[in-house]
C-alpha cells in the first residue's frame, strides 16, 4: 500500500454510537447559554447561541441541564427519553423547515442554517471558485469513504446547498474515491471531479486547491471540507437542527450525538485508554491530545484515536541535528529545521522574513520524521502565530 494513503476504499456503514447518560456540549467563546441550570430541555431545543450571529447549538436529546461551565453545558439524558421520542422531532415542522431552506439563497440561507446549528457564514463570502476537499484528512481515516458511499444523499444535499450559499462560478470536488455516482444528479453537474494522488499531505486545503486550479494560493478560491458539506447536507435534508456528527474511530466510521463524551465513544469501540496513552482528537498528525475523556464530541470533530503508551519515542527538547528530513517532506518547500531553531530562540521576525513561516500548512510531517523528536509542529505554530502578531504590530 502507498505510504500515507488517503484512499480508504468504500468504508463502512456509519455505526451509531448509543446515546450516553451524560452529554457535554461544547461551544465557542462568543456563545451564551440560553438555558438555566436544572432546566428541562427537549431534544433539538437551543442550548446556547452566538452573540453576533444567528448560530445556535442544540440539545441532542431531551434531558436536564446539570451544569453550565465556560464553553460547555452538561446535560443528563431524561430517563423517559427513549429513542422513539427522539425520532418524533415534530416531523411536520421539519418538513416545512426543509422546504423553506430549499428556497433560500446566500446570506439568508446561512442565517437559517445558523439557527439550525451549522456555521456556513464564511461560505457566502465573495469567491470565484469553490473547492470541496473530499479527501480523508489524514492517513488511516475512513469517514470520507463512508460518507460518499453510504450517505450519498446527505452529501448531495450539502453540495446543492453549497451551490446556493456561495456566489462562486466554478466548482471543484477533490477526492480519492470513485465519486461518479454522486454526480449523476443533474443539479450537481457543475462540479468538476479532481482526483490527485491520494497521499498525505494532499488533503491539506492549500494542496487540494492547487490540485483543482493548478495554482498556489490563488485569490478568490474557497476551500470547504467535506465534513462541513456533510453537516450542511444533514440539516438541509432533514430540516432538523444538527445534533449528530460523523467521525472516525480507529479506522471505523461512527455517528454519535453531539456532546457524547470521548470516554463513552471509546468504550463503545472497545478502546479503553490506559495510563500513559494519548487520546488524539481530530487526527494523529494535526489533532490535539485530550487531557480529559469527558470531552463531548463536537460538530466539527472528525476523529478520535488512541495511541498506546510506548508506541513511539517521546517528544523531547533535543536540539536540531540538521538531518534535513523535514525539508524533504515539507509540502510548502520550507526549512522547518531553521524555523524551529529560530522559534526556539524567539527570533520570530526571522521566521517570517527569511523563512516565510506563514506558508506553513501545519501538516505535521516535519514532526513525524524528526529524528531528534522535536515538537516541530508546535514550533511551527508558535512561529506562525508570533510572527503574524509582529506583523500586526508593525
Amino acid at each position, binding site marked *: 500500500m502507498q505510504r500515507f494513503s488517503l484512499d480508504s476504499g468504500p468504508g463502512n456503514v456509519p455505526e451509531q454510537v448509543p446515546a450516553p447518560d451524560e452529554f457535554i456540549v461544547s461551544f465557542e467563546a462568543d456563545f451564551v447559554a440560553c438555558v438555566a441550570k436544572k432546566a428541562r430541555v427537549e431534544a433539538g431545543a437551543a442550548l446556547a447561541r452566538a452573540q453576533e450571529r444567528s448560530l445556535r447549538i442544540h440539545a441532542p436529546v431531551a434531558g436536564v441541564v446539570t451544569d453550565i461551565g465556560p464553553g460547555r453545558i452538561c446535560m443528563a439524558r431524561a430517563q423517559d427519553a427513549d429513542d422513539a421520542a427522539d425520532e418524533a422531532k415534530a416531523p411536520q415542522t421539519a418538513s416545512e423547515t426543509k422546504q423553506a431552506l430549499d428556497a433560500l439563497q446566500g446570506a439568508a440561507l446561512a442565517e437559517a442554517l445558523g439557527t439550525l446549528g451549522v456555521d456556513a457564514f464564511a461560505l457566502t463570502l465573495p469567491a470565484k471558485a469553490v473547492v470541496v476537499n473530499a479527501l480523508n484528512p489524514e492517513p488511516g481515516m475512513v469517514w470520507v469513504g463512508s460518507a460518499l458511499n453510504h450517505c450519498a444523499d446527505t452529501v448531495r444535499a450539502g453540495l446543492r446547498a453549497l451551490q446556493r450559499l456561495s456566489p462562486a462560478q466554478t466548482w471543484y470536488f477533490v477526492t480519492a474515491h470513485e465519486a461518479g455516482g454522486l454526480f449523476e444528479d443533474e443539479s450537481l453537474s457543475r462540479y468538476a471531479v479532481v482526483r490527485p494522488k491520494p497521499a498525505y499531505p494532499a488533503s491539506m486545503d492549500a494542496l487540494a486547491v492547487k490540485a483543482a486550479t493548478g495554482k498556489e494560493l490563488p485569490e478568490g478560491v474557497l476551500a470547504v471540507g467535506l465534513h462541513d458539506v456533510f453537516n450542511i447536507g444533514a440539516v438541509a435534508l432533514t430540516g432538523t437542527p444538527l445534533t449528530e456528527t460523523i467521525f472516525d474511530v480507529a479506522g471505523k466510521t461512527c455517528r454519535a450525538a453531539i456532546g457524547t463524551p470521548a470516554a463513552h465513544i471509546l468504550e463503545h469501540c472497545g478502546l479503553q485508554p490506559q495510563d*500513559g496513552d494519548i487520546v488524539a482528537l481530530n487526527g494523529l498528525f494535526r*489533532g490535539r491530545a485530550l487531557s480529559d475523556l469527558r470531552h463531548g464530541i463536537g460538530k466539527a470533530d472528525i476523529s478520535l484515536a488512541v495511541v498506546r503508551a510506548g508506541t513511539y519515542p517521546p517528544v523531547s527538547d533535543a536540539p536540531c541535528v540538521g538531518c534535513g528530513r523535514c525539508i524533504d517532506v515539507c509540502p510548502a518547500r520550507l526549512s522547518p529545521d531553521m524555523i524551529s531553531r529560530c522559534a526556539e530562540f524567539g527570533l520570530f521576525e526571522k521566521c517570517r522574513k527569511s523563512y516565510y513561516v506563514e506558508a506553513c500548512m501545519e501538516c505535521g510531517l516535519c514532526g513525524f520524521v524528526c529524528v531528534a523528536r522535536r515538537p516541530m509542529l508546535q514550533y511551527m505554530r508558535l512561529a506562525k502565530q508570533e510572527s503574524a502578531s509582529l506583523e500586526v504590530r508593525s
Partner: protein
Amino acid sequence: MKSGNPETGGMVPCLLIGESAPHIHCGRTIRGLMLDIIIAMLPSAVLAIVYWGVDALRVMALAVAVAVLAEAACCRLMGRKSSIDDLNAVVVGLLVAFMLPAGVAWWAVVVGVGLSICLGKMVFGGIGANPVPAALVGYAAISVCWGIHVDPDTVQLATSWSDPLTKLKFFGAAGIEKFGYADLLFGRQIGGLGSANVGMILLGGLYLVARRTVRWQIPLAFLLGTAVVSGLFYMAAPETYAPPLFHLLTGGVMFAAFFIATDYACSPSRTAAMFLYGVLGGALVVLIRVYGMHVDGTAFAVLLASLVVPYCVLLRPKPFGVK
C-alpha cells in the same frame, strides 16, 4: 491529569499524556541513525583488524573510549544531561580512528579524538551545531601539528604495502603502475586504518544510502567531483597525472564521500545545494592532491567545502504560494 469518570463514562480513571501533534512518528531516532553508521563501518573495521591485527583494534577502542569520556566530561562541565547515549560520540571516535594509520601513537589518538569532541562538537553546543565535521577537526589538528606521527608512510613500517598517493606525489604516474585496482579496492594499501579499505567503505556507504541514513546525492556528487576534475587532468597529461579511478580508490575519498561529507549538521539538504557542495569537495580533493603540499587532501577538501555550506543552502526554492 486525572481523567475519565467512573460514574458517567464507566471508564477507569487514567493518566493521559498531553503531547503536541503529531502523535505518531516514523520511528527513526538519532540513536538509530548512529547505530546504522556504526553498522556501516563494521565491515571495514573487521578488515582492518584482519590486516593490522590488534594494532587496529587498539586505535579504534581507544578512540571510542576517549570520545565517550570526553563527551561525558564536556556535558558535566556544561551542566547538561549526558548525551553519550545517542551514540554520536562513538561514531565521531570511530571516524577519527578510521582516518589514522593502525600504528599511530596512543597520545595522537587521545589528542585527536579529544579535540574532535571538545573543539569540533561540544564547544558549539553539541550534536547538530558543528560548522565542520567534528571528526575532521581533531584529525586536521594532529596531522598539521604532528604530521610525522600521523603519516602512514612514517608510522606503518612493518608492511610490504605502500601508500599509492605518496608514490603518485613523488614519482608521478610512473610510480603508481604497480598498483592494481583490485589491490586498492581490497585495501591492500597503507593509509587510514579503516578508510583505506575502499571496497568495504563502499559497501557500508551503500548500506547507509539504502537505509536512507545518508542521502545519495552528496556521495555521488563528491565522487563525481573527484572523477571529473581528475579526469580533466588525466586527459590533459596522462603521463603525469593519475586516472580518475585511481583517485577514487585511494586515500580517504570514498570514506569522505559516504561518512564525512554527509555529516548532518554541516551539509546541505536540498538537491541543488547538495550537488554543489559535493562537487566542490570532490574537486578540491584533486586540486589539493595535484597542487597542495598534502599527499591526500581529502580531509582539508571537506573542511573547506563545509565552510561554503551556509552559502550553498541559499539555493532553495520559493515556498508554497510565495511570489
